[in-house]
């Protein structure tokens, strides 16, 4: 297990390096000179050149890339062209908003969606199942920004109980969290329903029933534990997708989060902020995926044996080769 985690952590390095290569290439091929948006309108050629030199834009691409990667390794994500602040310190201020919304929404979505899915599967083909499925399907068809607009209309315009825009206190978090929760929750309900249905037909469930196990034990011990695996996989994907897609919701609700920050930076050609912001998100995404994979192995011991067997095979292979050479 420990070896597996180490291996996965090492695998993250080439992926993150690849992300940096893609982002750097994208910012390189962007037309337009960042100096244009930084200097005053009447700036002379000398002033422009001096600025280019201080920003390090005159170096060849690969030198800048290596410098950037070295900086990232030291925890320096560059300096914003606009505010002249370190990107990391700016991202750090905005990250809590995005993370609060994403994590609390996904947490609530699991709490509501999974029980609904289980109920739906246990009552398959009854009106409860049909109604729940239809509601989930309907909620899944609403784009998040549309749902946001509907909620703003209902809660802020019609009933004026919640703020429509911006976050001044905790009430500002309610609507964005509610939107993400409904979207994710309905997809969890559907996933858990179909995976429960799959598990229900397995022999071990029949065995558990046959030996007279209490129905509650059958459902939670034998069925749910096995049905959880696809749900965990989709939680990991959702958190990543939400963090990336957050900028749309953050625009709707005026949340000063990470997504909004990156979107603004893209529009104003503030490359260090785009690079730094997207890199932080990709890093978080990789970490979350790693955690999900580890949880996966904990929940499904079958995978653990396969990992162990994998490493054993590797060891045997190395041994064989050593013998052949020696």
């Amino acid at each position, binding site marked *: 297990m420990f070896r597996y985690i180490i291996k996965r952590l090492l695998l993250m390095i*080439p*992926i*993150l390096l*690849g*992300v940096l*290569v*893609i*982002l750097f290439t*994208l910012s390189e*091929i*962007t*037309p337009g000179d960042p100096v244009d948006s930084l200097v005053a309108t009447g700036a002379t050629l000398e002033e422009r050149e001096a600025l280019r030199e201080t920003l390090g834009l005159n170096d060849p691409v690969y030198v800048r890339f290596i410098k950037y990667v070295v900086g990232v390794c030291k925890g320096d994500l560059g300096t914003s062209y606009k505010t002249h602040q370190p990107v990391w310190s700016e991202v750090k201020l905005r990250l809590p908003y995005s993370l609060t919304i994403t994590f609390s929404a996904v947490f609530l979505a699991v709490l509501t969606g999974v029980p609904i899915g289980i109920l739906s599967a246990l009552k398959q083909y009854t009106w409860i199942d049909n109604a729940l499925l239809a509601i989930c*399907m*309907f909620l*899944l*068809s*609403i*784009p*998040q*920004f*549309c749902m946001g*607009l*509907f909620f*703003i*209309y209902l809660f802020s*315009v019609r009933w004026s109980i919640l703020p429509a825009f911006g976050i001044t206190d905790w009430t500002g978090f309610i609507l964005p969290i509610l939107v993400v929760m409904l979207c994710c929750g309905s997809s969890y309900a559907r996933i858990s329903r*179909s995976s429960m*249905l*799959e598990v229900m037909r397995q022999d071990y469930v029949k065995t558990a029933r046959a030996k007279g196990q209490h129905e509650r034990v059958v459902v939670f011990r034998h069925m749910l534990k096995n049905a959880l695996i696809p749900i965990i996989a989709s939680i990991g994907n959702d958190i*990543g*997708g939400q*963090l*990336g*897609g957050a*900028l*749309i919701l953050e*625009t709707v609700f005026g949340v000063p989060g990470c*997504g909004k920050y*990156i*979107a603004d930076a*893209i*529009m104003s050609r503030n490359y260090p902020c*785009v690079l730094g912001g*997207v890199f932080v*998100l*990709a890093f978080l*995404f*990789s970490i979350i995926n790693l955690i999900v994979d580890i949880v996966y192995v904990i929940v499904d011991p079958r995978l653990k044996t396969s990992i162990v067997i994998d490493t054993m095979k590797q060891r045997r292979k190395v041994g064989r080769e050593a013998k052949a050479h020696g």
Partner: protein
Amino acid sequence: MAKLYTPAMEKLDRQRSKRKEGFKADSPGRQAWKRLIRNRTAIVGMIMIIILFICALFANWIAPYDFITNDYTSLKQSPSSIHFFGTDNLGRDIFSRCIYGARYSIFISLFIVTCNIFVGGLLGTIAGYVGGKVDNAIMRIMDVFQAIPAVMMAICIVAILGNGIPQLVTALTISGMPGAARNFRAAVLNVKSGGYVESSRSINVGHAKMITRHLIPNALGILAIFIVNMVAGGILIISSLSYIGVGISPPTPEWGCILSQNKAYLMTYPYMVLLPAACIMFAIFGFNLFGNGLRDALDPRLK
């Protein structure tokens, strides 16, 4: 040697073969089709999709007004029998704009899905078919692309290329590539183990023919659900991006564009926002229903 095959036996054989014809089983595709048209949700979804296509194809005839002409005599009118969805701040009929919007959303989404199949799908198919080092290389590159959130990636690319439909298609093709590759690869790996692949290899069928004639047609059955979901996802992401002003620029009557133009009136004239939003939901709901029915039809085990 005595004659073994008597006329009586021949007659019996003919009868048997006739009876066999009578019991001929449907092909898997036909069975799935039968299940599909018996599925009520799939039929509802199909009808919704057909309505959307009619709106998209015949927008010129269906829409009562032009989508771009400003009419300053009827500004911000509430929904009525003259203007079904009311008019916006420039006096444009919102119903007509929504009808034309179907054209943009559906056709751009279908185009993106086609591009995704050609780019991501081809990469995934090659990875699954060739296997080994090629598979590893392609999928590791896809891992890198997948580490960047898709929406973020699409916005970055549109920011570089500028606003416009071809640019939007390019951006969404690149950002959708890893997902398509992953799904196609899984489907090809699934199909590859089939007996017919082995038998066609044994009669020396070339690689290109193997992929185009055997693997892709068989994998499409598995991928049909993914493709329908991709169309729904395409409509969703196009409208989301144009809502925040990325991709399609305002005078175009794309649904997301209409929403972003009218969002200032959410407080005072809510119909301007809520009705176009309902159009987006209608489209996505239709494709989702159809996709769900398709899954039940193609994968009866899950139902």
